[in-house]
């Protein structure tokens, strides 16, 4: 048994973290909101492309274990672009299906971004293609007919697109299922990262902010809220890494493990958001402060997770399906 990172994995994570710290500070997330300066968002994609992220699976030879902490970092930075969708979902699926439309070179070059539809299409306004994962088949469509949608997380640049018709990209249920699990794993990893960011912001704030003559962070109630939120996150993260390993090895328990990761990460991120807003007090409730950028993203990502389906999948793996009334 081993459950650690290689030096290469650690180095890659740190490189991505450093890159995002400079290329995706809160001001860039803010710029992705309506009326913001989209050029800084474009610059961020260029920076990610410069590191080879969009083609990381094929080009850099990364598997899900290599990728997972990198995706966590994109959550930590609330990258307002379809990184998970393009790098971890679409690119491997296109490669596996022989890339009939010839999109991979564009992805590698940073010209093509692929969003994934799920009711809404998050980052659709910033994508060139939309991937539809629907049961046993997948389709690829353009943004033709896309309609903008106003979302709580204004940085989503979400659209709605018509349901695709015509030739599917693939009808290989195994491949499509794998793509859906990668998307779910990416969401779980981002949620852990978002949770960590919200806790970091909160810890920083309550150490400085003084009320009743002492830092707010010296009150037991604040300490205990934050400790609980941290515990929840710290115990979700290993489940996310284990799911990445199960997925990378195409292990039979991967469905159960991905669903477990998603459920734990969703709960942890939601609790982190609640805790962060509560411990900040009024300032956490303003848009002039950065916290809302991360909280709203966390809610948006968490909303994509089909809790009932994931619960059912774990129940089935535990042979509890038949126990339902």
């Amino acid at each position, binding site marked *: 048994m081993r459950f650690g990172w290689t030096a290469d994995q650690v180095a890659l994570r740190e490189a991505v973290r450093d890159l995002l710290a400079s290329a995706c500070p809160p001001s860039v997330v803010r710029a992705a909101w309506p009326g913001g300066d989209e050029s800084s968002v474009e610059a961020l994609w260029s920076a990610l492309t410069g590191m080879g992220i969009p083609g990381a699976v094929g080009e850099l030879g990364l598997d899900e274990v290599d990728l997972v902490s990198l995706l966590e970092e994109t959550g930590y930075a609330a990258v307002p672009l379809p990184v998970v969708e393009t790098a971890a979902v679409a690119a491997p699926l296109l490669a596996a299906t022989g890339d009939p439309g010839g999109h991979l070179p564009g992805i590698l070059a940073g010209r093509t971004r692929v969003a994934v539809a799920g009711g809404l299409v998050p980052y659709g306004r910033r994508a060139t293609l939309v991937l539809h994962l629907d049961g046993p088949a997948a389709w690829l469509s353009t943004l033709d007919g896309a309609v903008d949608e106003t979302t709580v997380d204004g940085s989503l640049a979400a659209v709605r697109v018509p349901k695709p018709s015509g030739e599917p990209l693939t009808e290989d249920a195994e491949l499509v299922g794998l793509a859906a699990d990668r998307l779910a794993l990416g969401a779980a990893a981002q949620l852990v990262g978002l949770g960590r960011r919200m806790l970091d912001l909160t810890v920083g704030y309550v150490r400085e902010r003084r*009320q009743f003559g002492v830092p707010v962070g010296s009150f037991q109630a604040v300490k205990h809220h934050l400790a609980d939120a941290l515990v929840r996150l710290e115990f979700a993260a290993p489940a996310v890494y284990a799911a990445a390993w199960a997925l990378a090895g195409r292990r039979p328990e991967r469905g159960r493990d991905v669903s477990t990761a998603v459920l734990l990460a969703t709960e942890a991120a939601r609790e982190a958001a609640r805790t962060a807003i509560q411990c900040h*007090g009024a300032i956490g409730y*303003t848009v002039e402060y950065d916290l809302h950028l991360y*909280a709203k993203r966390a809610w948006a990502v968490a909303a994509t997770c089909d809790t009932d389906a994931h619960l059912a999948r774990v129940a089935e793996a535990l042979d509890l399906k038949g126990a339902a009334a």
Partner: protein
Amino acid sequence: MTVDLTDTASEAAFRAEARAWLRANVPAQPLPSGDTREGFARHVDWERRLHEARWSAVSWPERYGGRDASLWEWLIFEEEYHAAGAPQRVTQNGIFLLAPTLFEFGTDGQRDRLLPRMAAAEDLWCQGWSEPEAGSDLAGIRSTAVRDEAAGGWRLSGQKTWTTRGAFCTHLFGLFRTDPAAARHRGLTYFLVPLDAPGVTVRGFGRLDGDEGFAEVFLSDVFVPDADVLGGVGEGWRVAMATTGSERGLTLRSPGRFLAAADRLVALARSRGSLAPRLRERAVRAWMGARAYHLYTLRDVDALLAGVPAGARSSMNKLFWSELDVDIHEAALEILGPEARVDAAWSRGFLFSLSGPIYAGTNEIQRTIVAERVLGLPRGGG
């Protein structure tokens, strides 16, 4: 006196009248949020219509524009108001918070002068409690009021913040330090300040739910005459506690609002053809929470009418409704699933609900109050 949870004949008549009027008058389309500049103006129009029909402050004496309604009738009006989906009350800080304080601590002159204009939505009041360094710790207020004996009043300076709808209101009530030597919650005085007075600057800023509903209010040597001191110089803390009691308790948070929200949640759940049992249970439990809140407030009204002051029980009230409100909205978002991301009524309501456990004294502070004043646990200990 015993238990009867049905309306008396006169209560039923009152309910019927309110319901009929609301049915005929509530705007068919929801108004834009009253916490934006344009929406606020629309809401003020609505408030004036309410006032014309004498529904804006039903429990007040008739001479101030009310109906002398009983507390039970007031609760009934609130139920009907929220069930009808009527607009939020942008006058609430005046009518539900300042007015009870005026009834308790004001002079006849202040009441005669202020209440009719408040009921008519001519004066629009906002709160001036928090300051950059005094949020939860209200006693940390630094804004000052310096005596101007010659002019017969006070000169106010300082900064207030988190003032809800402050950018759209005409008046502010708040605490200022009149005795700089006195410690913390001593030496404070409660002032009534017109926002068009020379020296006042108001800057609006944005809230989590997307509305520009907060304001910072800067005061620089603003003159306020003695007639606009509420409850006596140096008595500010005691007077303000009456106002925050109203804010935490029944007055601001009548059960009607949560009953209506829970009913909307149940309707949302019902509208889903197939709903996971888990989510059905959430809706059922949220509805039971609203029902529990309703019944608790009815007990409270009974106690109030029997002369038992609400006191620290208003902190229990606040703990319950604020958590309930978050719970109702979280349940709705779970039912909505991926559509919860869309900027719409439930998602905005959710964001707004998150302010409940923070404002009017954080829930952490309320828990401490309940523990110390209701349960009698020792003070202090951080």
